């Protein structure tokens, strides 16, 4: 009986994580792992394993809608995936080494730090401004054909845009892939940062394109997670289903929601979760907290 309660608890936590993840744009995994590890006491390897699988489900489940709408810039997405997939391989191999050496506390600390640093780009995503060119098109704009067009709801018109500094985006994307493989999350915030701050792409396009990329990145890490036994069936199953359901609900709620305040409150809660992860990591390391 107790185990069935635990199962329901995991399912509910996953739905909530998926919902908040979609609402804030952080992604379900980022919310889920702190809940699983700190609040429920699930071993971190099973928590990140389940999180990684749920990330694929969310990306594939919601991207189908975005791709249909045509906001996603597939060309920019796939060109940057060279770096995210490579980063994911390096990241997941690194995490395997870290766990084998018994240094799991490092993962708690990095998770907390990444969560805290994700809050700013996520906050920025919540208040999108219409796109205006900052830099002139450079060589990579032309070589990689980084042009596109999207419908802007504020201006009620189509906006033509272009991206610059593809190479810089590539470097940030390697980091995003690395973090994704390391922590079993989509690291959408870093992907957005790469396209927004490095490549000057409009925030609306970066958000949906990053969602398109997350699944490919997570799938890359999944093989290495798999052979190392991070995927526990009874934990991964309710997580994948719950986060997917929660994120689909969250995406719908987002369309109806006008105010930003609720989402900012959630970001503050996530900040607390991030700090908790760091404290847990330091405590595991042997700090007297």
């Amino acid at each position, binding site marked *: 009986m107790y*185990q*069935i309660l*635990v*199962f329901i608890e995991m399912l509910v936590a996953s739905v909530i994580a998926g919902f908040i993840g979609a609402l804030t744009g952080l992604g379900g995994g980022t919310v889920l792992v702190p809940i699983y590890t700190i609040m*429920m*006491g*699930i*071993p971190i390897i*099973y928590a990140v394993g389940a999180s990684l*699988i749920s990330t*694929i*489900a969310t*990306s*594939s*489940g919601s*991207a*189908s*809608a975005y*791709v*249909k709408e*045509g906001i996603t810039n*597939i*060309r920019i997405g*796939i*060109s940057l*995936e*060279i770096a995210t*997939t*490579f980063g*994911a*391989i390096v990241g*997941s191999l690194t995490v*395997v080494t870290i766990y084998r050496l018994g240094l799991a506390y490092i993962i708690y600390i990095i998770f907390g730090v990444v969560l805290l640093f994700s809050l700013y780009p996520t906050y920025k995503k919540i208040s999108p401004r219409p796109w205006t060119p900052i830099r002139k098109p450079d060589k990579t704009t032309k*070589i*990689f054909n980084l042009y596109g067009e999207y419908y802007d709801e504020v201006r009620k018109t189509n906006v033509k845009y272009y991206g610059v500094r593809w190479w810089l985006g590539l470097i940030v994307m390697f980091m995003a892939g690395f973090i994704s493989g390391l922590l079993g999350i989509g690291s959408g915030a870093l992907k957005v940062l790469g396209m927004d701050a490095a490549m000057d792409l409009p925030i609306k396009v970066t958000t949906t394109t990053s969602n398109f990329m997350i*699944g*490919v990145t*997570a*799938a*890359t*890490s*999944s*093989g*290495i*997670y*798999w*052979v*190392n*036994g*991070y*995927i*526990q*069936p*009874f934990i*991964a*199953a*309710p997580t*994948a*289903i719950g986060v*997917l359901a929660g994120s689909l609900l969250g995406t719908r709620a987002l369309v109806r929601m006008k105010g930003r305040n609720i989402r900012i409150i959630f970001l503050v809660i996530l900040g607390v979760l991030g700090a908790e992860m760091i404290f847990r990591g330091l405590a595991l390391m042997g700090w007297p907290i």
Partner: protein
Amino acid sequence: MKFSIEKAISYSLITGVIISSSLIILGLAFIFAQGGAGPYAFAQISSFTSTINSKTFGINEVFSGLRTFNGISYIYLGIMVLITTPVIRVVLLIAQFLYERNKLYFIISTLVLFNILFALLVLPRFLSRCS
């Protein structure tokens, strides 16, 4: 009708997610109905510190367990289907760039596919041999 890669991608993703969720839910239903899966008792499977995981439950067991309605096999098959959805997405993109005769992007997307397949098929074998 014009061939639309966006639609093809969209439908393949939706189909993949539906098949995979159904398999996962079916697997859970088997576990609950049978009070376990194959030789494993429910308490063994559901413990947070369970040693039943993707390393101890091998790929061969996943496929052989399907015939005996082993819930774990169905869950793992569902997860495998899920993992292939982004891969199919990249394959469809390669087809699109080939169709458009976009040489640069054909090469780029092929490189991405190479990375994924390397990480999914080659590296795990190498790793399991090492440990």
